[in-house]
């Protein structure tokens, strides 16, 4: 078997394994016993502890985007549209995608490494021997936590980003706080907010699922743990862009663009 055939076989094997993993998730998540305690613990770790990073990057992103957009708008004489443009750009696209990518870097890698090290140190086997379904306890709780926490983080990140943008607007001109927000909300529509908010659930699901999948099937000792963490970030980042592309196509077909 040549190298290309082996690579293709490995890819197809992994795709098959991932498909079975997804089916198993949907088979197990609604069945008792429910791991509420672990779910809320993960929500705290994944959501609350990611907030400072998401907030900081969001603030910088809003500020920088505003400063970068201003010269072009000044050239065309539409500087007054700056808050509306930044607001739409952040809420529709940049906020969800950048936050999801940061989330994939922080949470996807940490889930991949945590489950990977649990796998190689036999902690997952120990859990099974202790009468626990490790898939439910470790995978279902984490995937649900990422699915529900990322949209909340995106909402907070967007809000902080718009505050950053407000600061950026006021560096070169003076705009009141109420006028700034009025300009943003006057230009936002249902089709700007809802589709971009809904897709963040899929981003969160992808990050959690890939992190858990890579960690759960980690092998080759400590080297494998590092590889799991790394590939969890790479694969989930690519998936975020693919989901984004699909979401844009779907909203376009439905006439929301």
């Amino acid at each position, binding site marked *: 078997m040549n190298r290309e055939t082996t690579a293709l076989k490995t890819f197809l094997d992994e795709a098959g394994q991932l498909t079975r993993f997804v089916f198993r998730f949907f088979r197990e998540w609604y069945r008792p016993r429910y791991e509420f305690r672990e779910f809320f613990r993960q929500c705290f770790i994944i959501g609350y502890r990611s907030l400072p990073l998401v907030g900081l990057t969001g603030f910088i992103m809003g500020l920088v985007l505003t400063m970068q957009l201003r010269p072009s708008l000044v050239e065309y004489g539409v500087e007054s549209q700056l808050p509306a443009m930044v607001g739409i750009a952040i809420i529709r696209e940049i906020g969800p995608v950048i936050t999801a990518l940061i989330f994939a870097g922080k949470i996807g890698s940490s889930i991949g490494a945590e489950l990977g090290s649990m796998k190689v140190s*036999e*902690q997952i*086997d*120990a859990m099974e021997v*202790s*009468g*626990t*379904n490790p898939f439910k306890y470790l995978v279902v709780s984490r995937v649900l936590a990422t699915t529900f926490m990322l949209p909340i983080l995106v909402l907070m990140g967007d809000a902080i980003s718009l505050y950053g943008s407000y600061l950026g607007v006021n560096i070169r001109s003076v705009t009141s706080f109420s006028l700034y927000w009025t300009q943003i909300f006057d230009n936002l529509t249902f089709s700007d907010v809802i589709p971009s908010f809904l897709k963040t659930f899929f981003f969160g699901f992808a990050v959690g699922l890939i992190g858990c999948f890579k960690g759960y099937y980690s092998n080759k000792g400590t080297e494998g743990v590092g590889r799991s963490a790394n590939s969890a970030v790479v694969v989930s980042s690519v998936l975020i862009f693919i989901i984004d592309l699909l979401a844009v196509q779907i909203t376009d077909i439905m006439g929301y663009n």
Partner: protein
Amino acid sequence: MTAVSIIPVLASIPELPDSTVLSIEHLYKSFGDNHVLQDFNLKLHKGENVVVLGKSGSGKSVLIKCIIGLLSVDRGDIEVLGYKVPELDHEKIDQLRVRVGFLFQSNALYDSMTVRENLEFPLRRHWIQVKAREVEEMVMSALEDVGLSHTVDMMPSELSGGMRKRIALARTLILKPEIILYDEPTTGLDPITGKEIIDLMVEIQKKYATSSLIISHDMNCVKIENARIVVLIEGKCYAEGRYEELKNHPEYRVKQFFE
């Protein structure tokens, strides 16, 4: 400290036909072309210590994981405390695992939990109906058995290798199992600590009248008093007997373990 009885929620406990608590017959297990276990047979009786001796990669850990249902078997029968392991569903295998302890080679302590939480975990997960106060008593009693009650609020990362092994043993003991499966209990420990762990295993076996199946290649394990030794070669039970018998075995492949 008063001993607390464990009342697991068991639907029905099968009756044992005789003193055999674990019986393996014609067991086969392969991974692709690697035939790890081939027609392996073993019996463990109540209160007995059996040491399975074999080289690295000979299938010792695979054997012990098949017994507890962590790996499925290709062919053959495994009967533990009256349960036919290959035929058990999730509910039944959980019932069995309450009665069978497993000490992992790597200890498998949960890194994110304190020693107390590590010990409480199997109690809470097996749906055992005990009050919070009783849980605390059981945790402290198990820790006292291994001489480490002062570590109750420490994290596993703060413990030495020997202490981690003892805590893992305490976690195994907390459900008062009838059988304990030891996977390489002295691996990674210095000879003195290894000897201490073996002494502790013997002490526990006497105190709780458990049956033990010990997977090892350590000669100190083989020398456990009255232990029956099974030599695993090429996936089969190649030789069986007491230390003194096997030490003078005519077959070199058996004798070399004792040289």
